[in-house]
């Protein structure tokens, strides 16, 4: 965090251009030596980060999300300066403090107070500065008597409290945080989040990496979604997190398809009735719509026998969550006995989902709803995230009203 550059005008705090990091993977440690001595490549190159470019203004907070191994930690380490980039360049204005791992550098046998001095000077504070900050650090960490006992007697939550408290006392211009909040109890999580929000108020720049979309949304204006080392998306927080959550659900759904196939075996083998197609708002491909838009589902069923049957329709989110299910037989007490083609339409005048990717599944069931003749899934429909509703969470837009009683 020592990298101090001249304040080169403007409001740009971090400028990263075409940044890349390649790790050299060696099969054996001795290969590294051979490569140096014989000047013959002996490694496998692994590109952890490929041409990442972005810019963060002063006072802005940037979230970094992505799967494990997407390059998040590499990017943070490059920003913090513990790794050197393989290509590209970056400019950071002001003092950078990195919280890549809470408690790195703590000595287990030393007391909390001794560790404050060691750790804070590691982060670049002078002895006088530490002395001035000591009270504030102790206050925030809330360790009480334990501060003069060795760190090894601490619970993990206490270690985290002390580490966070020291790290944020450095008063940096740019704060780089990796998953720091995922530890500690609820009370402390809130407390540390408050401190970071205060940082933002003071016009400091934050780069924050987390798997908690809720926290990312709360803390960050803008989000970068990293996927296998490249920037997959970069936009305002609510958009990117919504898309990422979508992607996560889809991935989960794929995992589940095996089970689903087994379920499918429950359908009667001899095809006597089947679904020819399902359309959404007259289209067969994927559609996207806004919240509270109208959705028309049209189902075409081909019946080859006269057995009674009924049609059921379900709306599922892409992670397989059943959001809504209906069965015409149960609702209207009506069965179909016709042979030949027939079409049914279900109209949903306004879908109250916040955002996400959904699809419609239609079933052709026998009269008792026990046998499934056929089952077909429509193309997906996306509900776009709504920028006005960024304070609400969950699946449904439920009307509500706050009243202050007293």
């Amino acid at each position, binding site marked *: 965090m*020592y990298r101090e550059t001249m304040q080169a005008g403007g409001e740009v705090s971090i400028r990263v251009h075409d940044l890349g990091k390649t790790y050299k993977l060696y099969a054996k*440690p001795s290969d*590294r030596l051979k490569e140096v001595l014989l000047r013959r490549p002996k490694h496998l190159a692994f590109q952890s980060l490929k041409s990442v470019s972005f810019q963060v203004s002063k006072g802005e907070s940037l979230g970094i999300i992505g799967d494990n191994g997407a390059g998040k930690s590499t990017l943070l380490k490059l920003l913090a300066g513990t790794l050197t980039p393989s290509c590209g360049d970056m400019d950071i204005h002001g003092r950078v403090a990195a919280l890549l791992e809470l408690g790195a550098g703590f000595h287990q046998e*030393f007391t909390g107070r001794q560790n404050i001095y*060691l750790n804070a*000077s*590691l*982060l670049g504070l002078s002895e006088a500065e530490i002395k001035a900050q000591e009270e504030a650090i102790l206050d925030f960490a809330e360790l009480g008597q334990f501060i003069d006992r060795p760190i090894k007697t601490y619970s993990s939550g206490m270690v985290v409290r002390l580490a966070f408290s020291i790290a944020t006392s450095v008063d940096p211009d740019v704060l780089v945080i990796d998953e720091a909040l995922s530890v500690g109890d609820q009370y402390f999580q809130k407390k540390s989040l408050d401190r970071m929000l205060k940082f933002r108020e003071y016009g400091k720049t934050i780069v924050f990496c987390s798997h908690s979309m809720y926290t990312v949304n709360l803390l960050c204006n803008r989000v970068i979604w990293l996927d296998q080392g490249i920037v997959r998306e970069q936009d305002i927080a609510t958009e990117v997190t919504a898309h990422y959550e979508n992607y996560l659900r889809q991935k989960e759904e794929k995992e589940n398809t095996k089970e689903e196939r087994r379920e499918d075996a429950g359908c009667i083998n001899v095809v006597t009735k089947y679904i020819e197609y399902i359309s959404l708002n007259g289209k067969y491909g994927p559609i996207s719509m806004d919240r509270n838009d109208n959705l028309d589902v049209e189902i075409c069923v081909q019946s080859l026998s006269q057995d009674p049957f009924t049609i059921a329709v379900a709306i599922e989110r892409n992670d397989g969550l059943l959001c809504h299910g209906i069965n015409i037989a149960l609702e209207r007490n009506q069965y179909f006995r016709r042979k030949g083609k027939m079409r049914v339409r279900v109209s949903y005048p306004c879908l109250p989902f916040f955002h996400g990717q959904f699809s419609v599944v239609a079933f052709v069931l026998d009269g008792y709803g026990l046998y499934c003749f056929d089952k077909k899934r429509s193309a997906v429909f996306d509900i776009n995230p709504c920028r006005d509703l960024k304070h609400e969470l969950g699946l449904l837009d439920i009307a509500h009203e706050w009243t202050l009683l007293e």
Partner: protein
Amino acid sequence: MMHALIRARIFIHLFLSPVNCLVRHASLLKGFVGREIRGRFAGSVAGIGWTLIHPLALIGIYTFVFSIVMRIQVTQEETGTDNFLIFFLTGLLPWLIFSDSIARATGSLIGNADLITKVVFPVELLPTSAMIAGTVTNGIGFVLLLGYLAFTGYANPYWVFLLPLFAAHMVFTWGVSLFLSALCVFIRDIQELVGLVLMVWFFSTPIIYPVSFVPEWVRDYIMYNPMAILILAYRNVILQHQIYLSDCLLFCLVSFIFFALGSWFFMRAKPAFGDVL
């Protein structure tokens, strides 16, 4: 011409940055040294006492084996004392300052891998503080020895030369520390190897035996060993009150070359530490 000048400046920068960081990060260095000295024994019963027990045991064993069993006799004419213990200690303590510093420094980077990959700070402080810790713990013994010798009448104006000698001693140790600690990041075997090499080095340096015990044909080679020059110079100054300036200047030169190379290698290897650790 311009180009050469710039290259020279870059070289000087690499060479001086460990010195520079000592000044700029004095409080952090203090913390590290404290961690190295106290942290090593924190929680053990004897605590800091172990820094005494170790060299005392070593002195006891060597004195028993070499003075009592093997009956090595040192003469007043050659070494300035006929007391084996005094002879031995004036060589052993400077050696321990060197060897303990090296042994500690070699593993200092790989032992703090989590720190290097997670926190940005001048990494050269790690081998440097390990070296200082080794110097302080063994230097106390050296100072006590000098005090005892002064008390028994060995003190002499020539002892002033101990200061530049000690400075060169430090520069040499520092250079080797920087080099080995950085090399050890890439080749972990170094850590095992250092213990062995130090043992061989110890016995090939005239610490436990006077030079006159060494056969003629080996004696010429002994002076290729910088530590031999140093130990003999220490003894000359402390016990015999004389100084061979040419030898001392040679050692100074050697130690500066070692420091320049060690420092240069360390600063060149530094950006790769994060990748390897």
